[in-house]
């Protein structure tokens, strides 16, 4: 489960051209992010082999496509699981037989995910006798995920599995996705145009537009880039990853340990030691040159000024700060930057007014 996935693919579809030369880790969740029509689903379908572009695709050392050598592994011979946007359950089969469809076609020696495990992971034990037509959108999507998992894929492909669902259904599914992410060491390639899904799920992010990949890298680094049009719900911001440290039961707070310090967040009942991910928006970060006195802000991290970028209003500037191994964005007025005499390389304190715990 180590190594990389390399895709060098090109396809002309009318006036649209997909052309990517990408590498991403063969582990964790990689999100293909971009607006509708940017080619992210086409790329996913090419990885599955459902669509054929020209080029080369190598997954963890196995060549799935190489036109130079005339290699093209058809989709049914690729060890993938695919979750479609609209579930695509077989309407003539009940839930049990939908689930068995892929399982029965997976040689026993290759099975790593068991029947009970899949049912329990997605909470669909009660649905086995039902027909897809009688399921809600959220139930259908959970069955589709279990069906894909029961093929014991070595790479799970997900095409906007939440896009067809309304907000409450989305909230119902997201925890299952996070559980999947936590409990299975299964690389996932996930297509999305929703910033909240990116913030909660992505380890690695590929930003796409008009058939090209604009950037590809770890989520923290990509979100902190000043030159990319990616926003977490209309706002520039970053995602920091850390571990749950001590919990303060009296004040209902939990401490998230980062390599550069720690942040207090509202206690959401996570166990100490668990991996945690927090979102920090640029507008909630201010910069101080000295330890502030008598401030209500208790989350203060030492940081180093790295770079500046334009914000949407000429009065404002985005500052990228290095905070241990991770990055933060802060939004200041240009006047503040001038008064604080901020320059790259300068050591400062980042004061963080609000932190959202994501998982």
């Amino acid at each position, binding site marked *: 489960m180590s190594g990389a996935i390399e895709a060098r693919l090109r396809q002309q579809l009318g006036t649209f051209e997909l052309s990517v030369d990408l590498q991403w880790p063969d582990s964790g969740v990689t999100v293909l992010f971009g607006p509708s029509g940017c080619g992210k689903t086409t790329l996913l379908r090419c990885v*599955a*082999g*459902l669509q054929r572009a020209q080029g080369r695709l190598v997954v963890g050392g196995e060549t799935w496509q190489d036109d130079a050598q005339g290699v093209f592994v*058809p*989709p*049914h*011979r690729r060890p*993938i*699981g*695919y979750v*479609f946007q*609209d579930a*695509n*359950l*077989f*309407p*003539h089969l009940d839930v049990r037989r939908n689930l068995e*469809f*892929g399982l029965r*076609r*997976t040689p026993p020696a290759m099975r790593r995910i068991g029947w009970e495990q899949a049912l329990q992971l997605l909470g669909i034990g009660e649905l086995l006798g039902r027909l897809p*037509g009688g399921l809600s959108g959220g139930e259908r999507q959970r069955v589709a995920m279990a*069906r*894909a998992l029961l*093929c014991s894929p070595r790479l799970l*492909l997900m095409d906007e599995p939440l896009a067809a669902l309304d907000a409450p259904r989305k909230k119902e599914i997201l925890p299952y996705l996070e559980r999947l992410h936590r409990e299975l060491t299964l690389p996932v390639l996930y297509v999305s145009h929703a910033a909240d899904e990116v913030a909660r799920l992505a380890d690695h992010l590929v930003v796409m537009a008009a058939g090209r990949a604009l950037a590809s890298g770890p989520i923290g680094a990509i979100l902190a880039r000043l030159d990319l049009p990616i926003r977490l719900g209309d706002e520039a911001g970053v995602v920091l990853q850390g571990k749950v440290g001590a919990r303060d039961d009296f004040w209902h707070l939990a401490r998230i340990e980062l390599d550069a310090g720690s942040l207090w967040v509202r206690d959401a009942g996570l166990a100490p030691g668990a991996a945690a991910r927090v979102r920090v928006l640029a507008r909630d970060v201010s910069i101080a040159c000295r330890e502030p006195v008598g401030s209500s802000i208790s989350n203060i991290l030492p940081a180093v000024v790295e770079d500046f970028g334009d914000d949407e209003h000429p009065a404002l500037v985005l500052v990228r700060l290095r905070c241990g191994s991770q990055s933060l964005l802060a939004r200041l007025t240009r006047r503040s930057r001038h008064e604080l005499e901020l320059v790259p390389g300068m050591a400062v304190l980042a004061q963080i007014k609000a932190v959202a715990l994501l998982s």
Partner: protein
Amino acid sequence: MTLTHDDWSAIRLSLQLAILTTLLLLLLGTPLAWWLARTGSRWKSPIATLIAMPIVLPPTVLGFYLLLLLGANGPLGRLTQALGLGLLPFTFPGLLLASMLYSLPFVVQPVQNAFEAIGAGPLDAAATLRAGPWDRFVHVALPLARPGLLTGAVLVFAHTIGEFGIVLMIGGNIPERTRVVSVLIYNHVEALEYGPAQALAALLVGFTFVALLALHMLGRRKATDR
């Protein structure tokens, strides 16, 4: 009114012809419909048009050309003779061949529509669930196209029972071999034997009603399945 030996033999022949035509057309028409539903070939339209022509052409025209083609001097007639099959006109196999040609659109079109209605979704899903092309056809496409296959089968069966023009052209009117019910009714009427004609005609009316009723009910079941 009791049916005579001749009547029974015509009924048996009609059923035999209809059953064989239906089975063989399902076997041949289904792959053809699958190809038409999936292909992007430029031959799709001409071939679909050719298949649809028996719907529009008078059966006598179709029968006439078949007679010429299969006759002793026709190219197909020469071929069947060279293969040691003899001449097909005025034999049961010849009648079967003509029936199949005549009813081909009645199986191809509903089945093709049913395949097209499935869309790419379930077949893509099956491909990602490790099902190869044949597996997808048998376990996904065929079960999902079941209503279309049933419609096609009922239409072909009923249509073959009722055909007359093409039977007369290619099969003639030979007792025990090519004289089917519809031809026998014509014989009875020609001979002014209205009683037997009526009995057989009523049988066909009743049969057609039952067949169409079955079709209608299958269609309704399909609608409530979804």
